[in-house]
């Protein structure tokens, strides 16, 4: 089964995520963070931040919605039941803190086939309310094409 490469370059509508203090704390607890700047807003302020600081991997929370439409886009044609997350890269800019508003754009940057498997690569670019790029993500999903 050949993969369909026609949708390469397709960009999906921007998503906007308002970063909440309690969501950062919930995420930080779920991934086992101990650094008080992620868990205690007084400690974060004492360290010079406006509010609690998102751990770098909190990017999955604010950026994920931007690629969901691509995963289910019939023009891309991912067989979701046979998809696994193959690889992930994030590049980070300034730290994200509670109160920030993050806008993310998702793009399908590559589709290829190797060894009977389809590789679907999405890129997300996330910017804060000051138009600073806080994170660029590269999400590689692998689908067994049988």
């Amino acid at each position: 089964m050949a993969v369909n490469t026609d949708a390469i370059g397709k960009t999906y509508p921007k998503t906007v995520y308002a970063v909440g203090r309690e969501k950062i704390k919930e995420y930080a607890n779920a991934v086992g963070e101990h650094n008080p700047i992620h868990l205690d807003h007084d400690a974060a302020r004492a360290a010079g931040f406006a509010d609690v600081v998102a751990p770098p991997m909190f990017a999955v929370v604010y950026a994920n919605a931007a690629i969901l439409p691509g995963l289910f886009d019939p023009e891309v044609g991912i067989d979701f039941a046979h998809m696994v997350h193959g690889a992930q890269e994030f590049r980070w800019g300034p730290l994200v803190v509670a109160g920030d508003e993050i806008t993310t754009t998702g793009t399908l940057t590559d589709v290829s086939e190797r060894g009977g498997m389809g590789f679907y690569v999405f890129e997300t670019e996330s910017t804060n309310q000051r138009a600073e790029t806080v994170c660029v993500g590269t999400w590689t999903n692998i689908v067994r094409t049988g």
Partner: protein
Amino acid sequence: MDIGDTFELKVTPDRHLTVRYAGASGDFNPIHIDEEFAKQVGLPGRILHGLWTMAQVARAHTEALGGPDKLERLSVQFRGMGVMEEEVVVSGTVREMDSERAVVASEATQRGKRIIRNGEATIRL
């Protein structure tokens, strides 16, 4: 920090970890939270979210190397599957360094099997 320096992080996810992580991250794929569903699709049971395991790799770097602002880039490949109630061991090694940045190689294992491989991070110095 010097080339060749190593660090390690060990953490054992408890049996409800994937439920808490699903809520925290918004990833409710049933293979992570529904034992019966996971078995129906051929898995041994519920498995860890790869991005939770990647977060452990990220945390190993930020705890060992000076805080979240130091992590400029992290790239990983997911392999196999992680399970709950088994210790996850993250290990990292400083491979390259100049006056501004260091490059760190990493992996994560469970029972000696790699669940994350080819981890590579860039650290701001």
